[in-house]
């Protein structure tokens, strides 16, 4: 049997078995109607899986002719039938559309997207058991909404806005899931992929819904600097922390400074640019501010000296205390990314 016919046969078997589970008994005709397959396909399934079915003892006929045979699933085999349906559906892979399931009502689609967003925004890695349930709820809500965010193009959907929202929510699920796993590379990858999707979805979501999602992404302990930064030359301190930062050409870079972008970032390089300063001491910091190099840019001061905090705050800058490289990377990335998203200070 060629592959196409095999798939059709598989689809018909799935539908027939699933429909049989849903009724206490059936005739070939009734099951064919309820499962939307041809009667001969039902007949084929009954012959292929004889151990799963049994005939019911017919009542004494009252009319002319033999009544149709009534069947039912054997009670002790219904779990096996469910397992078989699962195996066959998995074998369909990306062709589950062949099952031609009815799409959800628009109201359920919208409500499910709201639930997905709420669930993922509420999932905290600090409570992994509850977070696991909430992520499951979020993923299933996307399925319930009838949206597969892995679909390659939004053109497959009537409602492109819906696709953008679902895609953004799915990306945030990946970020939270990565945080629960604690795999830094996975966190960085998920965060880098999620940020542009969440930015794109902002136009399709009310702020009440969008802000908790973008905060989930920004608050993740990722190290991807999603927006361009301006750093004084030499910038060994920064490139030691972020080897993936590379110098880019840009207009109006002050003398003695470089414009850098993180090669892992998937956001297009654009304003606002954040200025990162790595002063050795307070006098150096004061000198930097006195030259007013940053103009209207936001500024982040990174130092291992807590004493510099006061001076930094006086000049309206953010401050990151350099402790370990690991935590400092995540702290710098979080501050820069918050500023790039317009979320301001913590």
């Amino acid at each position, binding site marked *: 049997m060629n592959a196409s016919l095999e798939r059709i046969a598989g689809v018909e078997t799935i539908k027939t078995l699933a429909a049989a589970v849903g009724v206490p008994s059936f005739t070939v005709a009734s099951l064919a109607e309820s499962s939307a397959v041809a009667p001969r396909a039902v007949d084929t399934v009954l012959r292929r899986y004889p151990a799963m079915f049994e005939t019911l003892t017919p009542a004494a006929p009252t009319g002319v002719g033999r009544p149709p045979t009534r069947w039912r699933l054997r009670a002790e085999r219904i779990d096996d039938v469910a397992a078989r349906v699962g195996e066959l559906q998995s074998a369909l892979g990306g062709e589950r559309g062949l099952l031609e399931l009815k799409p959800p009502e628009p109201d359920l689609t919208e409500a499910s997207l709201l*639930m997905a967003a709420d669930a993922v925004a509420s999932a905290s890695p600090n409570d992994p058991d509850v977070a696991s349930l909430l992520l499951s709820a979020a993923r299933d*809500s996307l399925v319930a909404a009838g949206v597969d965010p892995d679909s390659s193009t939004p053109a497959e959907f009537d409602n492109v806005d819906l696709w953008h929202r679902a895609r953004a929510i799915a990306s945030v699920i990946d970020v939270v899931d990565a945080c629960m796993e604690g795999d830094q590379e996975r966190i960085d990858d998920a965060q880098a992929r999620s940020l542009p999707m969440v930015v794109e979805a902002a136009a399709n979501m009310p702020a009440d819904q969008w802000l908790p999602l973008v905060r989930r992404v920004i608050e993740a302990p990722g190290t991807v600097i999603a927006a361009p930064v301006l750093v004084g030359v030499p910038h060994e301190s920064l490139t030691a922390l972020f080897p993936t930062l590379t110098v880019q050409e840009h207009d109006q870079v002050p003398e003695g400074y470089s414009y850098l972008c993180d090669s892992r970032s998937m956001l297009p390089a654009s304003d606002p640019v954040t200025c990162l300063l790595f002063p050795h001491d307070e006098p150096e910091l004061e000198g930097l501010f006195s030259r007013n190099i940053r103009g209207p840019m936001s500024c982040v001061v990174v130092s291992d000296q807590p004493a510099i905090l006061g001076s930094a705050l006086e000049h309206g800058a953010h401050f990151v205390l350099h402790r370990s490289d690991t935590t400092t990377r995540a702290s710098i990335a979080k501050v820069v990314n918050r500023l790039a998203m317009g979320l301001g200070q913590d």
Partner: protein
Amino acid sequence: MDLEQAARVHAGLAHALIGLWRACPVSQQVLQSELDLWSDRLVISDDEFFVQVADRLTLMGGEQAVIDALRVVQPAQPYLNAMFVAVVARARAVYEAHADWAADELQLRVALGRNSPYPDEPGFGELGAAACIPPRVDLRPSEVTLTLVPPRLGPPSWASVPYLLCHELVCHASQAADADSTDPFTEGWMDMVALELHDRWIDDVFPWDPAFAKEAGHRLSDVVRRGGPHLREPHMTTRGSRGTGWAAAGWVLGKIRPFALDSEGAWMDFECLSVQLNRLHVVPALHKSFVAKVNACQGDLALATRLTVVLRHWLAGEATPAEVFSFK
């Protein structure tokens, strides 16, 4: 007139007009404007209020039946007490039939508000009542708080009180999970159960005009599940949760139906399952996961089949409610 007197007289007026409201469109508009004026009204006695309103209706060409009804208005509190007692007794009977009832010594507390808690645009006399069960002390809810909003307390609001009481007593009085306004199971799934029970009980709970109360209850249940661009949080998410809970409940009821003798049998099985599920001590996150999974069945035939199998096992007494919750 202060808020307390306004609530008292508006409730009395609302009850007096429940049988006349639908037939009197002119009066509806006039009465709503009278309700809106409560804070500026100068009255000494409750009777004086009814005289003022009757005079206004006469001036504005209101229907005579409405004007006459305002001459014999009774205090509304006894009617409210009767509704509460009737719903508590019936909710308790349902829970004791299928599981257990966890809310002894329930009391009704009436609170007053100046503004409707609903973000929706109301019709005349609508959206003037809301209810909740405040956070528990010692894990036993002791009261149901019914909030009345005098400027919106017309007959439709009054007639929605049975539905509000049914929702609180069926959905929340004996819920075992912690309260969470975004819980699609307690707010949505159980709301569907509450509304069906409301319809079955309404002849006894609101004997003065059961049809009007049924309509008002359904209207309010629809409103609090209705989304729309006018909504802001928390309404957006709470309504989404109700909608998904309703959808999941409807789907499961549909799956149970073929295994029952008739619709009534299917309903009794579904009611039993719902009450048993609501009595399980689980975290709200499990409710959210369960409801989402049920709704995902519409897009996943293998998942739908597994859930149907679990439901068949439950119907046969071979699976516990906890196993239904944790199907996957």
